[in-house]
């Protein structure tokens, strides 16, 4: 029983520290930023919104931290490690096609045959990839003899949190995935 009290005690201390740091950070936020965040939320005057944000969420947060504090500690450490890794590399996570995203190996002529764009109003050149034909030509110029071309489909999240579906073709040289050419680049709703 003492261990259980100790466990919950650590959770309570952790919550107090996190809450105090959060209050301190909020006080340092510029007023313009606070106003901006307020303006972005149209429901802020509703009683239901105030109940949820000022009563339910804090109570749920306290209970969650006291019960599941090791989970928070784990994610905090993971976050710190990743930040350090990105800081070392000097870049944020970038889009990359990986082997698990590859769909089908195709030749240039097979791709060009399937990607001819037609329009009844003739508002697009009847060539592979239509208005993006020049971009396609630039892409295949960089594909060496013996390189493979594969179609791909990737769902990923940008560093800004936007979920996207990207599809297209990539070149592969000696098993290493190289440049990509996109045919679909769309935002996905959050629930997918």
């Amino acid at each position, binding site marked *: 029983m003492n261990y259980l009290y100790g466990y919950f005690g650590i959770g309570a201390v952790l919550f107090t520290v996190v809450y105090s740091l959060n209050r301190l950070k909020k006080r340092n936020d510029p007023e313009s930023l606070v106003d*901006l965040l307020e*303006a*972005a939320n*149209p429901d802020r005057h509703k009683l239901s919104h105030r109940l949820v944000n000022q009563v339910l969420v804090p109570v749920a947060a306290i209970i969650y931290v006291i019960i599941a504090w090791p989970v928070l500690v784990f994610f905090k450490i993971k976050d710190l490690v990743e930040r350090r890794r990105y800081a070392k590399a000097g870049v944020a996570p970038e889009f990359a096609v990986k082997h698990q995203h590859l769909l089908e190996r195709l030749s240039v002529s097979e791709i060009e045959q399937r990607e001819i*764009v037609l*329009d*009844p*109003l003739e*508002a*697009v*050149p009847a060539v592979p990839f*239509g*208005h*993006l034909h*020049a*971009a*396609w030509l*630039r*892409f295949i110029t960089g594909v060496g003899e013996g390189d493979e071309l594969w179609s791909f489909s990737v769902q990923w999240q940008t560093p800004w949190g936007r979920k996207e*579906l990207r599809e297209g073709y990539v070149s592969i040289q000696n098993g290493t995935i190289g440049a990509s*050419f*996109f*045919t*679909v*680049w*769309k*935002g996905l709703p959050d629930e997918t």
Partner: protein
Amino acid sequence: MTAQIAERLRYLGEEHALCTNPLNDYFSMGGNDPAFESTCSALWRGYVGTWEIIADRLYLIGLQGTLKDGTEASLATLFPGFPTRVFAHWYSGSLRIPQGGQIEYVHMGYGSRYERDLFLEVERGVVVTTRVRNNGQAASKEAPQGYGVGAMLVFPRTGQHDRGKP
């Protein structure tokens, strides 16, 4: 970031404000990007496109903007050989058309909220579904109807004629 001037869309015989920039994707996918000049804080992208949907297909039918060298841009600047109509086959995603009274004005991007949003879901330039999202009711009947920008800062032009001057 100031609220942004919307694109224009002709749909079912009416002109609408379109709070989506399908040309962004064209540029991201390697399409010809001639570097537009931002002329005011409400138009960071530097151009306004006019779009049309005919038989469920999305077309770009006009473009107004200024390039960094000071020349006026048109549809032919981006799509040589297609000065009047361009099929937007590169675009997949939602087109957002705000409708009804303004619920809240947000002076940032396309952030303002309206009573309804009509979404046209597009796959490779073809409208596949439409849906309406109800966002609630405007506080008063006098609420502005339709998308608008409250204020902006106009930048002085720095076209080719000004370059080289102190």
